[in-house]
């Protein structure tokens, strides 16, 4: 594989950049693989990469119905954080933060990781108390957390509404300074390029039609491009998990819902951290191109549409304008939607299944992008060793049966309420 470096950049400039290698190949499916990963999104690509890198398993195929990086890894708001209260989520995400910090060097691909910090705003004394508790829990798990008062928040985001007569005054906020953003496409492409270079076949435009299972063991999959034998199969298909589960006669604690995001026209640098509104569901950051990147609530009813509905967008942006009134002057550039695999306790599932050789990675709700490296790393471990790692032991499928839920928000099973 051609290394990306300043020297190669200069060298290729002499040939007008016409002689760069393709970043990954476009192979046809082989007859058999050791591991088949279904879903060529961030998590699937990362899983294949860590299977090859950490476990020397390279007879691996990624089967993608569309094109790699065309799903949620290219549709999120690029936020990376580990500001969770529960141990399972905190330790898992903080492990991921380490992988994020090393990712550009590790992948030889600039993922533009920018640890600019995230601030969750508080709008009441009670919320400040809750954030103090969450911050303390984070620090006990080695995650950086700073409780900010109103004046400290004002220093960081003076453009927010600090006037007296607002419905939700800013009392302060909880900040994780090491959180940030990264370029999401680069994450997918970086993992794809490295996985490909280690022998992983990335097979696009290939839809999974069914599974070959006998005596409780997986033998392979049936696809639109023929049957593929496989010793092990991993599912990484986010919002499409229920569709494949139906083919496996499984009913999962998941519902598929639509989440929208949008960007404004690009403006000069105004916001150098990620900020979330505390009296609703709205988050914002500014991209390197200057666009304000915003998101918020689910559309509120089961959806596979991959496109949103205006009432929700209007509701979300109303919150945004309440928080930062200058947003009302901006023109909207683009809006889009992705389909989320909303689990019944808001936490993911990375586990084995009752079918021998079939592994499940789903339930990412709002937090799939930032989990990409940790999800890939732990899922690769689970597949390679046929047992869960301690980092994803809590993310079991049967926790819904045993009552060991990880309900970070305390919302219960109404997945569409946010």
């Amino acid at each position, binding site marked *: 594989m051609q290394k990306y470096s300043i020297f190669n950049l200069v060298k290729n400039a002499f040939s007008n950049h016409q002689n760069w290698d393709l970043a990954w190949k476009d192979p046809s499916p082989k007859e058999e693989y050791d591991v088949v990963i279904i879903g060529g999104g961030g998590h699937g690509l990362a899983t294949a990469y860590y299977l090859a890198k950490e476990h020397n398993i390279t007879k691996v195929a990624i089967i993608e119905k569309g094109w790699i990086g065309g799903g949620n890894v290219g549709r999120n708001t690029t936020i990376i954080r580990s500001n969770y209260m529960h141990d399972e989520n905190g330790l898992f995400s903080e492990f991921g933060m380490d992988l994020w910090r090393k990712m550009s060097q590790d992948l030889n691909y600039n993922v533009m990781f920018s640890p600019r910090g995230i601030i969750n705003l508080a709008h009441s004394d009670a919320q400040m108390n809750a954030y103090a508790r969450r911050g303390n829990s984070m620090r006990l798990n080695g995650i950086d957390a700073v409780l900010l008062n109103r004046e400290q928040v004002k220093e960081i985001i003076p453009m927010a509404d600090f006037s007296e007569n607002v419905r939700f005054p800013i009392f302060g906020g909880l900040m994780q300074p090491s959180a940030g953003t990264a370029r999401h496409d680069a994450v997918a492409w970086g993992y794809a390029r490295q996985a490909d270079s280690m022998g992983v076949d990335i097979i696009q435009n290939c839809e999974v039609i069914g599974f070959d299972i006998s005596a409780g063991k997986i033998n392979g999959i049936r696809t639109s491009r023929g049957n593929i034998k496989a010793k092990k199969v991993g599912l990484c298909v986010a919002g499409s998990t229920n*569709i494949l589960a139906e083919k496996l006669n499984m009913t999962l*604690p*998941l519902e*598929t819902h639509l989440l929208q995001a949008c960007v404004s026209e690009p403006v000069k640098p105004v916001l150098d951290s990620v900020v979330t509104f505390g009296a609703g569901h709205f988050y914002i950051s500014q991209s390197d191109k200057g666009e304000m990147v915003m998101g918020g609530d689910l559309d509120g*009813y089961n959806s596979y549409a991959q496109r949103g509905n205006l009432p929700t967008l209007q509701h979300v942006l109303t919150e945004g304008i309440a928080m930062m009134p200058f947003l009302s002057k901006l023109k909207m550039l683009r809006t889009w939607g992705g389909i989320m695999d909303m689990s*019944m306790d808001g936490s993911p599932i990375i586990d084995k299944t009752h079918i021998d050789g079939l592994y499940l990675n789903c339930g990412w709700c709002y937090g799939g992008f930032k989990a990409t490296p940790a999800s890939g790393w732990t899922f690769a471990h689970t597949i390679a060793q046929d047992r869960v790692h301690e980092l994803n032991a809590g993310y079991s499928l049967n926790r*819904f049966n045993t009552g060991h839920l990880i309900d970070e928000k305390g919302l219960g099973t109404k997945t*569409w309420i946010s």
Partner: protein
Amino acid sequence: MLYIKCPHCGMRPQIEFSYGGDATVKRPELNKEISDQEWDDFVYNRKSLRGKHLELWQHLSGCRQWIKVERDTATHEIFKTFKANEEVA
């Protein structure tokens, strides 16, 4: 914006309604031995169909009645609406 025909009030915009999830989920019968699996299927497990989906909505800013809506989860086409106590074949 979706438009939902409330069987009590007629065609109304979606923002008058609140969503209530899969309408085919049935609570296990009382006065009967109930297995953990049955509880799981009632509380947590969902088919989340792509395509025709029967779901509950409440006409919250209208007559406040719960209704059933048969809707396509991929195209958002609404085929038919029912009163909450109507049996749907």
